[in-house]
Structures are given as structure tokens and as C-alpha cells.
């Protein structure tokens, strides 16, 4: 087991070891001295398996991030000719000769690589260097930012957006449960938000494999795997953990997204552990952010100390989150429509829109197509969205004629995507799902409304203004 910590000593956010009187992490500072293997390999030779680490103009390696044990690089897949994120973990000298360490890592990585899901950054390849000094895995390169970075930049999210992120993350957890995989280190830093507003969970199932590769010396706290602030109470003990541990971590992550704070803050590993098992949840933080009661109730259950009092599975959590979303959408007056269309269909519509929104011909084509469809169908299935559709059509026409240009590029893309999505689902949705008004994903409606409401309001003001 790890070092018993002196009370009152702050711990490092990266590795959980105590900080010294100057606030520096002695362990991180010592470990950096051991990074030499990577630095000393000639740049041209920094390759692992099929992957070659990219270099900046000055010859330094393109680092995407680094943690207590591993460094993540931007790398090039020499075989498939694509960019990937390559995580490289240096195996401590003491563990290099241990086939068991290597085997444990490979077993963990193999299980993680079997998980394929739109909300999980896929693992392409993994392995260990022939000399046993490094383990690595290449994963899908996600363009975007982490939830942590997003909250630090923009502040806490509103309930709808935070809930949507939790729902997408839960989809990943549900898929993982089918593979008997537990994340063990779910936190804002491991949830990527793509530029298409999709969630991609990174390092799924790899926290344990990484720690195994680090050997016993590099465990952050004895057998502890994870990040104390977001870890479940049972992770601090020695009993095996199950998917309910990830549900707790997701609860702490959702809490952070809503408040910018962690539910149980502590300066030391021990303090955090004790507070998690002893203190009541500081729900006043949620009240201060006006988090709806239904969400507070759900958070309470996700963050229950006793795993038996949490949602029993990711599947059960998904039902609870969707119920919560239904209540919230009713509360804010947006009609709830049955789920049916996958939101990745909309992501595709958005990508298509980016391709055509900035050339007049492309724009005209979308307009013509959308206008024809809209004229040919009944307005009934569109319900409340009919007015939106018509306003969007008028806006695009005015924009294309050069009469109205007060539209940001971003809003224009969203409008084109929405038109594509709203009126032409037959072309985009493989299962021939009927129109939006009959079956739709409420997420998409809300997302589109959020992104375009102000633009459409401004446009309507312009339309009605005397000229």
C-alpha cells in the first residue's frame, strides 16, 4: 500500500502524491528526471509500432498532454496514413523485466480495444516496445476540448447541456457494461467534447492497464486507481469495484459541470476519502446555480456513498437521466418528442452543412430542396417546429439574395444542418425513420433551437421592421 499521508498536506492534482511546502510535487519532479528514455531517442526514431510521433517545426515532439505516468503525443499512423493520439507509458526500470506487468497491460488494453461506440474514443492499436521500456496505445484523435477545459473557460454549464453530456457519457457506460469494462477514472479531463457537440470518453478501461504498466512503484496511492476528487468511496478501499463506481464518478463529473466545483473537496487524499464517506453533499452549491430539483435528486442517488443506493446499472441510469430530461424539457416549454433518430445523424448533417454553407450554389441547392420538401408535406407532423422551419427557409432565401447578412458563420451552418435534417431525413437516416415531427431526438431540436434562436429572432425583427 502507499504512503500514509500527513494530514494537512496538499496533494498533486496529477498523481495524488503530497505536495511539499512550496506547493510542488516531489514525485512528479523526480519522475521527470526518469523521462530520459523518450528524450534521448533520436527524433527520427520516436516510433511505436506503426505510429510515428509528429514533430513541430523546431524538432520537438507534439505533445497533446501528459499525466503522472504517460505522455500523449500527436502521431502519424504510417500504415493507414491518419493522425492518432498516441499514449506512451514509460515502464519503470524495476518493472521492465517483469512479463507479468507487460501481460497485465496488454490484457487491459485488449479489453479496452474491443469496445467500439460513437461516444468512446476508439483504441486502434496497443503494444509494448521490444525492450520493455514502454507500453503504448494509439487512439482516435478527437478534435475538441475536454469537459474540464470547457468549464474552466466558460464557467458552469446549464442543466440541459450538462444533462446531454451525462446522457452521452452514459451511452458509453452502457456499451462498456456489455463488455464488462469499468472506466475507473471517469472525470471531466477524460470526457472530450467534439466540435460537433458529441461526447467522446477517452482512456476507457485503461486506467487500470496504465497503472499496471507503471508497476507497483508508480501507483498513485497503493492499489488506488483513479483521481481522488472524482473517485467513488469504494475506490479508496480494497474491495472490487463495479459499474456503480463509474456512476458515482459520472455524478461527481456532472456536479462539476453544473457548478464548476467538486462535491467533496479536500487538500489531501485522506481528507477527500473521509469527506466522501462522512460528509453530506453540499447541495447548496447546486441551489446557488439554480439546478432543477429533479436533477438534484438524481445527483443525490448517483453520489450515494452506498453503491446499493445508486442506480444499479448504466442502463438504469440512462432511464433516470432521460426521465429527468423529459421533466426538464416540459419545464422549459419545449415539446418532448419520442427518441428515435440518432443524434449522430444530425452530426453528419452538420458536417454536410459545413461543406455547403459558404458557397452560394450549395446554399441555393439546400434551400431549393428544403423548400420543395416543405411545400410537399403536411405541416402537421412538424408541430411546433413548423414555424422554425419556415423562418429558416425565409432567412436562407434572404441571405442568398444578399438582402439580409446579419448571420454568423456558425449560425448559418446550424441552420443549413437543421434544414437538411428536418426536411430530408430519408436521405440521411438509414432506417428510413419518418419525419421529425413524428419521431425525433429531442436533443437535436433543443440543440438547434439553442444555436439558432437568437439569429432567427433577430431575423424576424428585421423582417417586421418598417423599411
Amino acid at each position, binding site marked *: 500500500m502507499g504512503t500514509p499521508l500527513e494530514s494537512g498536506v496538499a496533494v498533486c492534482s496529477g498523481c495524488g502524491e503530497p505536495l511539499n511546502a512550496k506547493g510542488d510535487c516531489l514525485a512528479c519532479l523526480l519522475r521527470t528526471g526518469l523521462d530520459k528514455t523518450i528524450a534521448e531517442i533520436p527524433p527520427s526514431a520516436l516510433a511505436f509500432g506503426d505510429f510515428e510521433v509528429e514533430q513541430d517545426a523546431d524538432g520537438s515532439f507534439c505533445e497533446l498532454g501528459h499525466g503522472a505516468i504517460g505522455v500523449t503525443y500527436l502521431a502519424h499512423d504510417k500504415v493507414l496514413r491518419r493522425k492518432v493520439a498516441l499514449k506512451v507509458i514509460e515502464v*519503470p*526500470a524495476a518493472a521492465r523485466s517483469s512479463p507479468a506487468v507487460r501481460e497485465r497491460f496488454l490484457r487491459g488494453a485488449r479489453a479496452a480495444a474491443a469496445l467500439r461506440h460513437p461516444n468512446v474514443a476508439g483504441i486502434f492499436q496497443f503494444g509494448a516496445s521490444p525492450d520493455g521500456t514502454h507500453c503504448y496505445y494509439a487512439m482516435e484523435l478527437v478534435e475538441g476540448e475536454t469537459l474540464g477545459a470547457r468549464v474552466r473557460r466558460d464557467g458552469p454549464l446549464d442543466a440541459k447541456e450538462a444533462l446531454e453530456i451525462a446522457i452521452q457519457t452514459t451511452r458509453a457506460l452502457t456499451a462498456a457494461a456489455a463488455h464488462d469494462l469499468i472506466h475507473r477514472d471517469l472525470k471531466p479531463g477524460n470526457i472530450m467534447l467534439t466540435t460537433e457537440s458529441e461526447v467522446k470518453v477517452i482512456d476507457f478501461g485503461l486506467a487500470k492497464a496504465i497503472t499496471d504498466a507503471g508497476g507497483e512503484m508508480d501507483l498513485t496511492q497503493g492499489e488506488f486507481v483513479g483521481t481522488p476528487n472524482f473517485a467513488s468511496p469504494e475506490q479508496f478501499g480494497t474491495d472490487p469495484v463495479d459499474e456503480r463506481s463509474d456512476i458515482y464518478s459520472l455524478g461527481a463529473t456532472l456536479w462539476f459541470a453544473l457548478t464548476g466545483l467538486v462535491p467533496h473537496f479536500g487538500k489531501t487524499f485522506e481528507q477527500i476519502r473521509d469527506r466522501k464517506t462522512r460528509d453530506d453533499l453540499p447541495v447548496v452549491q447546486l441551489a446557488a446555480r439554480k439546478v432543477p430539483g429533479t436533477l438534484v435528486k438524481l445527483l443525490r442517488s448517483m453520489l450515494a456513498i452506498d453503491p446499493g443506493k445508486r442506480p444499479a446499472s448504466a442502463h438504469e441510469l440512462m432511464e433516470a437521466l432521460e426521465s429527468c430530461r423529459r421533466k426538464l424539457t416540459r419545464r422549459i416549454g419545449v415539446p418532448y418528442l419520442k427518441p428515435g433518430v440518432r443524434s449522430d445523424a444530425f452530426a453528419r448533417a452538420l458536417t454536410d452543412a459545413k461543406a455547403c454553407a459558404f458557397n452560394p450554389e450549395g446554399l441555393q441547392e439546400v434551400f431549393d430542396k428544403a423548400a420543395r420538401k416543405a411545400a410537399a408535406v403536411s405541416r402537421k407532423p412538424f408541430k411546433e417546429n413548423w414555424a422554425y422551419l419556415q423562418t429558416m427557409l425565409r432567412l436562407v432565401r434572404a441571405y442568398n439574395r444578399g438582402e439580409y447578412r446579419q448571420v454568423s458563420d456558425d449560425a448559418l451552418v446550424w441552420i443549413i444542418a437543421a434544414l437538411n435534417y428536418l426536411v430530408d431525413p430519408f436521405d440521411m437516416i438509414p432506417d428510413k425513420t419518418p419525419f421529425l415531427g413524428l419521431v425525433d431526438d429531442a436533443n437535436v431540436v433543443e440543440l438547434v433551437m439553442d444555436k439558432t434562436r437568437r439569429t432567427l429572432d433577430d431575423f424576424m425583427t428585421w423582417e417586421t421592421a418598417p423599411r
Partner: protein
Amino acid sequence: MLAAGRSQTEPDIAGAALAELCQAYWAPLYSFVRGRGYSVHDAQDLTQSFFAYLLERKVYARADRQKGKFRTFLLASLKNFLADAADRERTLKRGGGQNFLPLHEEQAEEAESLFQTHSGASNGDRLFDLGWAEALVAAGLERLSADYKAGGKELLFNELRIFVAGGANPPPTYAELADRLEMAASTLRSHVTRLRTRYREALRAEVRRTVDTETEVDEELHELLHVLTSA
């Protein structure tokens, strides 16, 4: 440096080199003495006296490079010194180490603060090793800081320091820090990589003063890390 410390042919140089090393590692030795229950002043005097003893008796000449690291040698010598009641009494009576190694107030305060930070350590050896690790990384960071300062990049160093030294808060993302520093994220990434490389070199150079080979540098760092992360 250690080789110089053990030189048979140039004892003066060896003595001076050892004195410099002792100055750098004054704090862990002081911590160890404090850990034995001595008061602040007695511990200061004893640590000073130990250095005098080390140099006067040319104890360093006895250090056999086949028999272990300088850190181990120094601790063993200190333990012998403290165990020798007669020596201790005599040196205390004569008023400590006769200032042959100047003891600055700031240095003494830092050493005491170091002792307080690690005073919960399970035993004296661990207390000493933790102090030693602190002194090593402090020397590495100091060297790095001086380099950046000399190059007019003190601000950059202060901003990037967290990427090597860690801290209670996670480091900013490259994107947000690049934005704040008004530079491209790729440039910032290069700066961070360079800083880590330079720090690594500085730290390893510091360790190299106390061991003979690069392999031993690895072993020393692993050993200290092990002391830090295991009970």
C-alpha cells in the same frame, strides 16, 4: 564531483568539492538530526560540527565508490558522528562548526521548514531521504530558473513551471494558456517540451554529482521515488 570528493591526489580540491556538496545537502542532514530529537539550535550546531568533522578528519577519503552512493555514505557518517558521544559533547562545547561553512538564516529556516514538512516520516532514514530528494529537485529547479531568467524568460518559466512541478490545481490546457500568453498552441507545446527536457537534464546533472554513472542516476531517482511513494 563525487569523484573529486574522493580524490586522493588533490585533497584540497576534493575538500572544496565536498564542502560545496555538503552546503547543498545541509537541509536533509539537519532534518535527520532534528528527527533525533535535538532542538533547533543544537541541530544546527551538530550539523555544522558534522561538516567540520567530515573535512577535518578527511572522512571523504575513506568513501569507497564500490561500497555505495554518496547519499548513503553521508548518512552513515552522520550516524557514526552522532553515536560518538564524546565528539558530540566536545563539538557542542566548543560552539559548533566554527563557521567554516557559513550558515545563513534563510538556509536554516528553510531546513527547519523542510523538517516540519516531513516530520511525520516513519523513520530517520526516510526523513533524510525525503530531504535529500527535496534538495535535489530544488537544485534542478533553481538551475533552470536561473537559465530562464538569464535569457529574459522568467515570466515564461513561471507560467510553465506547473508542467514539471505539478501542484494542487491541474495545469491549464495548452489552448487556454497559449491564448493567455498570446502564442500558438504548437509553440507553447514546444516550450513545455523544452522546459521538461532542460529540467530533466538539470536534475540528472545534480544527481550525477553524487553518483558515478548514468545508470546510477536512474537507480538513485528510482530509489528516491520509491522512498517517497512507499511506506
